[in-house]
């Protein structure tokens, strides 16, 4: 190791926020309180005053409103559920013996990876598809094939439905050329004087996409045994 030039190291106090995040989540404190505490920890640690931290948080909260825009879909999902969408999804699956939990989730995983690779990340999601369709379907299939399933096990099956959506989108979207993460990598390398094409980057997402299907798919297949 090279000799440590301590003078060149920045002060460590701004990291207080990171420590608060780790401790807060480990203690299962309310995440909103953890976020505020971490913001003050890092902000004060970096030499900001209390009003400056509040203003910086407020500015960022205002600028990040777009993060909450997808909640607009809730009234639509609610109206569809009101008409019996979850019940119909469950009824359809209970009748279709060949639609096992494993097969439904495997098909969904492949569908999500392929559509995400084509840039269609918004056509499915936890509010749009997992809650109204996928979760009722896999729950119906699981209880049909094993009527003695406990509440705990049913919840695990539903959690697996959400997990499958995440794995599908995470390890599919980077194959698409114009996705934000590819553009971020390209931009970062460009600022360091290294010019790469998005296609070169997205090609290197394919092996991991296949590995994700193999690893998660194996777990889904094993779940049905």
């Amino acid at each position, binding site marked *: 190791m090279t000799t440590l030039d301590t003078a060149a190291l920045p002060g460590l106090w701004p990291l207080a926020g990171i420590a608060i995040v780790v401790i807060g989540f480990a203690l299962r404190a309310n995440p909103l309180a953890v976020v505020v505490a971490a913001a003050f920890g890092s902000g004060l640690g970096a030499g900001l005053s209390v009003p400056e931290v509040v203003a910086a948080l407020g500015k960022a909260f205002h600028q990040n409103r777009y993060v909450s825009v997808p909640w607009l879909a809730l009234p639509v*999902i609610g109206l569809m559920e009101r*008409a019996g969408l979850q019940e119909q999804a469950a009824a359809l699956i209970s009748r279709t013996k060949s639609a096992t939990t494993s097969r439904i989730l495997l098909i969904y995983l492949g569908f999500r990876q392929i559509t995400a690779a084509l840039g269609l990340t918004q056509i499915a999601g936890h509010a749009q598809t997992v809650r109204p369709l996928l979760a009722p379907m896999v729950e119906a299939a699981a209880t049909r094939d094993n009527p003695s399933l406990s509440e705990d096990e049913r919840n695990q099956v539903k959690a697996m439905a959400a997990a499958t959506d995440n794995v599908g989108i995470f390890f599919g979207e980077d194959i698409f050329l114009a996705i934000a993460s590819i553009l971020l990598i390209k931009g970062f390398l460009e600022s360091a004087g290294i010019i790469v094409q998005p296609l070169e980057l997205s090609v290197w997402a394919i092996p991991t996409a296949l590995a994700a299907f193999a690893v998660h798919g194996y777990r889904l297949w094993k779940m049905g045994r």
Partner: protein
Amino acid sequence: MIGLPALYALAGVVFGSWAVATMRDRQHPKRRRGAAFWGLLAAEFLAGDALGDMGNGLLLLALVALALLGAPGKGHALTTDAAERLASIARHGNRLFLPALIMPGVALAGTFLFPLQPGLVDPRQVTLVSLGLGVVLAIAFLLLWQRPPRAAPVQEGRRLAEGVGWAMILPQMLASLGALFTVAGVGEIVGALAPLAIPEGSRLAAVVAFTGGMAIFTMLMGNAFAAFPVMMGGIGLPVLVLGMGGDPVVVGAVGMLAGFCGTLLSPMAANFNIVPAALLNLPDRYAVIRAQVATAVPLWLFNTAMIWGFAFR
């Protein structure tokens, strides 16, 4: 040009309607707090521009205080009961799936069609504008087809929102924390410290420090995008690429994916891990993360091996 302002106004109206519906729900155990929570959120979306940074900051602190006091709580949003739903599926059958195709269909069509009509929709916001348009069209279709009570879109939206609870504002809060970390210079400190963790001359150790750093820092920030410039600037570029002659394409592309493995394990990635647990009424807040561990860890090993095996040919 239709862009974010129109969407924010629409979201403000939706949140505001939940405030009114909560206030009128006499059986709501946290009626005033719940109404105040949705009302403040509506104010943020409708009038946030006028509040200034400090005003928005105080509004955020008030939202968090209300959440700690039990807001938004669960009231009695009007919906159909089990018998009515069974009657509805007997009548409509698989046609009930049709409206579920409206939002994805509009998102798909908008992505391709809006750019053909320049000046109509802000080109940077095509996805979100398509989402908003899909919501409006789907609600109109469902109202005409199902003829529910007029307040049904408000009541049904509130029912789901109350199910998610305070986690509704968590993703936006976490994005704000990320911005504050940037102001405080957290990334630069981590980027300066990270190379110190690498023993001299070991290629494997350097790769593990890079992919491990990506995963751990992504877990802490909840977002691989925040971790990437830090770890790439601290280890990826100076040590792996410039120091050891690694291929920047492999290091960058696969390094990002190693970060995604961290996202699967992080409660800070609330949109993907905490919100779905709330949407599915799972009693364990971390149930989705637990379901992802056995996928994320082998994939992280795979990504580490990919860089080690293919970046230095």
